[in-house]
């Protein structure tokens, strides 16, 4: 590091954390990665699989109650709705996880 970062990190926080804290943070990180993994699988399935790889096959069906060919619907509508939902689900679960591991920022900070 050529010079200390002046905006990002409060002074002294780079010193080694307490071992318990470190273990807790490692567990928090592991849980975070697992959540990311699950959500990214959904992300991949709705767009790359339903919207691209299997789109032509799914076009044999229509979305119930509409006249959308199903693969076309995933590619031009469904995947986008799924993306929005995924982010809001992530926000909810991640904020819960932060509180569970006591690493949240509190209401007033």
């Amino acid at each position: 590091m050529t010079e200390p970062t002046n905006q990002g990190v409060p002074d002294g926080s780079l010193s080694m954390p307490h071992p318990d804290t470190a273990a807790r943070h490692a567990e928090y990180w592991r849980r975070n990665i697992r959540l990311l993994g699950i959500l990214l699988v959904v992300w991949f399935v709705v767009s790359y699989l339903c919207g691209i790889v299997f789109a032509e096959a799914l076009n044999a069906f229509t979305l119930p109650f509409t006249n959308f060919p199903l693969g076309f619907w995933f590619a031009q509508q469904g995947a986008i709705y799924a993306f929005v939902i995924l982010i809001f689900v992530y926000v909810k679960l991640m904020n819960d996880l932060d509180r569970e591991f006591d690493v949240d920022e509190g209401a007033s900070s």
Partner: protein
Amino acid sequence: MNVQAWTFLLVAASFALYIGIAVWSRASSTKDFYVAGGGVSPLANGMATAADWMSAASFISMAGLISFMGYDGSVYLMGWTGGYVLLALLLAPYLRKYGAFTVPDFVGDRYYSQLARIVAVVCAIFVSFTYVAGQMRGVGIVFGRFLEVDINVGVGIGMAIVFFYAVLGGMKGITYTQVAQYCVLIFAFMVPAIFLSLMITGTPIPQFGLGGVEQASGIPLLERLNGLHAELGFGPYTSGTKSTLDVFFITAALMVGTAGLPHVIIRFYTVPRVRDARISVGWALLFISLLYTTAPAVAVFARTNLINSVQDVPYSQVPEWFTKWEDTGLLTFEDANGDGRIQYVGPDSPMTNELTVDRDIMVLANPEIANLPAWVIGLVAAGGLAAALSTAAGLLLVISSAVSHDLLKRSLMPEINEKQELLAARIAAGVAVIVAGYFGMNPPGFVAQVVAFAFGLAASSFFPAIILGIFSKRTTREGAVLGMVSGITFTAAYIVYFNFVNPAANSAANWWFGISPEGIGTLGMLLNFAVTLVVSRLTPEPPAEVQGLVDLIRVPRGAGEAHELSM
């Protein structure tokens, strides 16, 4: 009032609003200038991000592109929204925790290297200029057609407006102008879409109309359009002509590129806390998806309308909008068989096609084709300008902060004080506006295409460096620098070769694995990942303090205090 009077009125009113906001939100410190003081609410940031994001390409070109590409246009819809999932899950919260001012700031500190910082600065400037050229061109098109001024004069007016609020207000001015611009552009996009949906399918919600029934024929709209396509010798609208692999690669390049675009990333530095960064990505995508789920409906309405209103119509009886767009050269008719009628047919038809329609005009011409009221047409012009100007401003800020903060303050002249840095930022923004204007007057290609390349460049340079910087402590400066350089060089070389050096060879037969230049960024990104991971294992591991920094950004607590401490 006629169309031109309405257009003039609505454009002038929206410009007055932007200037008013700029005067009210002047930047007084570098923190104001770079990150709007760090106190923007997540909802406002979501709106500003949406406007920042939705460019002239999204507003003017995208529905038109989809209209001509059918299913293949899905690459833009999924590509330009799916990246927000990556941004929310993998980047925004951690970068916000780190609390830097710019993307090169993070790259330079995480990779303990001035070289990494400089490489990131060069990538940021390169990507942003590629992108901004498309915006200025969009401004020129709108002015040229609706206010009937010369395209160059239009670009000049756009430059003056952006110059005013970007130079004066920095990120603070840009943020609050973008909130206003989002409102203008979404209103302008939705109103004609709702009109068209009502007219064609009888439902006011375009997303439902797209999957509804065409009232005139009683046939499902998409089936009807597929039928028209078959009749005229075009491929079916709901199936693609691109190879599945190419669609996959283009979508991935656009998604990853979205998550790696510096002007989008820096928006998440402006909120107070990590959790605000997370939720504001959600708001941003919600606001964006409103336009992005409407655009495919507009594309189908426009396509159906266009075919119905010009196919086999005698040239002497064409509507007024037809001749007006002919004057701009964006619509051309050549009576190949001399029968005085317009034959608009596809490649599979035995007849010769006589009509060429530029993709960029579909959204702008749509309200006229559908005979919507004059004020709607004026509104579309104001919306197109809002989209182009908001994105241009965001990009100009990246360029100016890359120069004043990363290049001067953090690299070449660390002794300058805040006032001098702020002045440098303003001068850099001013110069960037002029360069962008030059590209707008001498455009390198049509809007969406130029913009699409910026994504490949961002995907192959920043994305792997930032992700690995957060998720892999073992990533070293040597790995990151070589990764970024190889990724962007490979991608740029492929794009330049097929578009500029040897355009004749630009066809699927000559592409590597059938991947088009638009999708090559995905391969560049994989190359970047591979180089970074391998080189990192072969070089000494990062210093303990950098590894401590990575531990720190992985945990949200402390971000609020970090912002208080800065400056």
